[in-house]
């Protein structure tokens, strides 16, 4: 059976992108605003201009990093169960991260996200098998800022049996989160062997690693906790206007990050990720639902795959302000493209308004797009010895396939079952059940998932450990 896949660019273009990225790093270089990171790269053979904080990277140094970076890694949950693999030609989805607002389902308006909203999103995502991982989906306005990044992670760990895609807001925050994880996972070594979280690290486009980003890469590498480079050239503002030009920048930013990360700890897990967007020239916005955004993602994912690295991107998000037709079409199209492009982890479901807003209702709609995308990626199954011939034995021109045992036996393998969010009933049934539109059906589905939610089976001592460590961190910060 062959997997359908979408290759947007040619092998020659992949090679040219990498050539130009290597040239960019050798001649223009990257600015790295952390002395320790510059020193690490210098010891690996890079030429450093300390005054300008610019590091020029020879190809050999980067190649060494590519050589030592693992091609796949597995994520676990707090119970120590393996839950998913990044790489190995797998495609997974998780909800988008770090929204400022949620779309309040009652008022239909955006409002600042609270920890109760995060909990609701976690509960909904927990019941959706389409999402292999959780994310720290929103920033909670009711939690003190200094521990906000840790608190989100804590909430997910306490309430989910899935691994989590997360990120810090400051270098200290990241260190606090790593300490916390080591504490609740049974020590630094256990965390390294069975990581439960992936941390996003964002270079600043174009071609800059802030002290925070560089520090995060070093800390994550040394802790052996997966780092996900989220490079985001904005084509036309913080990146070249051409899609390929921005993909070159993306490659350069990722290659530089990998070089630094592997200098800090060769063999530590790292992801070729990103969240680029085109820059809308009318509104000055960064549309995640634009097809050109998805095209950059598909192209850079192809580059990452050619290097054998696990990949990540931001798709299945929309720029609509409501869970409306625009939200459906942007998220649906881009989810399909991401799956076909073979991206290891696709973040973004549930998000609206340029990643500013999260919606549990959108998440359950997106789950249907993800289901369809993953089904598409399975391709055409060959489930029987003949493709069709055998079904016609005894059919005698009657439409009696429903009576065949094989129909009952195989339909589930062929058809992915949608939830009630997707209406496939008769118009009469639809009228009788109250003429509900997608939004109304999504609201019901959210209620259903929240009601059916079951917490992870954490041993009481471990749950206690989580709570106590969180309380201690809270105290340390308010002191």
């Amino acid at each position: 059976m062959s997997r359908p896949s979408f290759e947007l660019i040619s092998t020659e273009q992949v090679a040219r992108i990498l050539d130009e990225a290597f040239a960019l790093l050798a001649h223009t270089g990257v600015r790295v605003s952390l002395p320790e990171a510059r020193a690490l790269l210098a010891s690996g053979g890079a030429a450093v201009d300390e005054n300008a904080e610019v590091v020029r990277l020879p190809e050999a140094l980067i190649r060494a990093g590519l050589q030592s970076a693992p091609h796949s890694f597995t994520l676990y949950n707090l119970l120590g169960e393996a839950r998913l693999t990044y790489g190995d030609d797998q495609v997974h989805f998780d909800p988008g991260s770090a929204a400022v607002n949620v779309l309040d389902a009652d008022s239909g308006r955006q409002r600042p996200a609270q920890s109760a909203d995060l909990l609701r999103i976690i509960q909904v995502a927990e019941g959706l098998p389409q999402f292999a991982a959780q994310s720290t989906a929103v920033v909670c306005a009711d939690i003190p800022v200094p521990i906000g990044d840790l608190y989100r992670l804590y909430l997910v760990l306490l309430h989910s049996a899935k691994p989590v895609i997360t990120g810090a807001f400051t270098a200290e925050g990241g260190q606090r989160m790593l300490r916390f994880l080591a504490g609740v996972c049974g020590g630094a070594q256990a965390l390294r062997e069975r990581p439960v979280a992936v941390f996003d690290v964002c270079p600043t486009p174009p071609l800059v690693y802030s002290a925070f980003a560089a520090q995060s890469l070093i800390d994550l590498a040394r802790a052996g906790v997966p780092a996900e480079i989220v490079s985001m050239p904005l084509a036309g503002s913080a990146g070249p206007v051409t899609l390929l030009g921005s993909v070159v920048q993306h490659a350069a930013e990722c290659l530089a990050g990998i070089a630094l990360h592997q200098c800090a700890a060769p063999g530590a897990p790292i992801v070729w990720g990103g969240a680029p967007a085109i820059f809308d020239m009318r509104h000055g916005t960064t549309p995640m639902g634009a097809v050109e955004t998805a095209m950059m993602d598909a192209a850079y994912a192809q580059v990452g795959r050619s290097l054998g690295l696990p990949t990540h991107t931001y798709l299945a998000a929309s720029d609509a302000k409501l869970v409306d037709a625009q939200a459906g079409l942007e998220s649906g199209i881009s989810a399909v493209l991401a799956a076909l492009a073979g991206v290891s982890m696709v973040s973004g479901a549930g998000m609206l308004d340029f990643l500013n807003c999260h919606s549990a209702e959108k998440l359950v709609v997106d789950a249907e797009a993800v289901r369809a995308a993953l089904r598409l990626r399975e391709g055409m199954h060959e489930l029987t010895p003949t493709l069709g011939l055998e079904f016609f034995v005894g059919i005698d021109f009657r439409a009696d396939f429903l009576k065949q045992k094989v129909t009952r036996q195989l339909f589930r393998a062929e058809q992915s079952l949608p939830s009630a969010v997707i209406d496939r009933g008769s118009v009469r049934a639809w009228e009788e059940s109250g003429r509900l539109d997608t939004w109304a059906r999504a609201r019901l589905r959210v209620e259903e998932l929240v009601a059916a939610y079951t917490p992870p089976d954490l041993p009481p001592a471990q749950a206690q450990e989580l709570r106590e460590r969180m309380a201690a961190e809270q105290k340390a910060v308010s002191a």
Partner: protein
Amino acid sequence: MSTDIFQAMAQSVIDGEKEEAARLARQAVTDGIDPLVAIDQGFVAGMRYVGEQYTLGEMFLPDLVLAAEAMKAAIAELEPEMARRGTARQVLGTVVIGTVEGDIHDIGKTLVGTLLSANGFKVYDLGVNVPLQTFLDKALEVNADIIGLSTLLTTTMINQRKFVQALEAAGVRSRFKVLVGGAPVTRSWAAEIGADGYSEDASGAVQAAIQLMQGG
């Protein structure tokens, strides 16, 4: 002949040709044209046209930004002559703008600064990750009318509040109008922290700044 050169000036801004704009500005000085007249009847006319076309959806951000750059280049050439004549361009107001400490989001703030300067404000862009004291020092130094604080992170929004408080503590609150913006910033947040103005986008920021200068 003057109208020809004014038209060429306007056109250089419309085309976003900064070398051409600078060349025409130098020529105006050689020809003895009053710099203020050159700005008003030449370059500003071009900028106004671009602004209108942008609002109509016929021109786009690259047009606007390149026009603003051409305008800046022309004014830089004219400034020494204005100083020599002891005149000064009528600016709508002086703005100090930057992204607050802890935040490195650059693009929105820069766009706001560019549009403000294109629309007749004198703008000092302090960049990103700017300590609150630096905003205040610069505002005092250039006698700013408006201080613009940008932030894209909920974690650093607090710095906008702190800045208003710092102005009060320094006893200079009434000297400056504070304009706030950035994706998580809302009208109600602006009101809550006692800022004077707010806008959710760059063209709105220009309107808000003009309103503030009119005392609104």
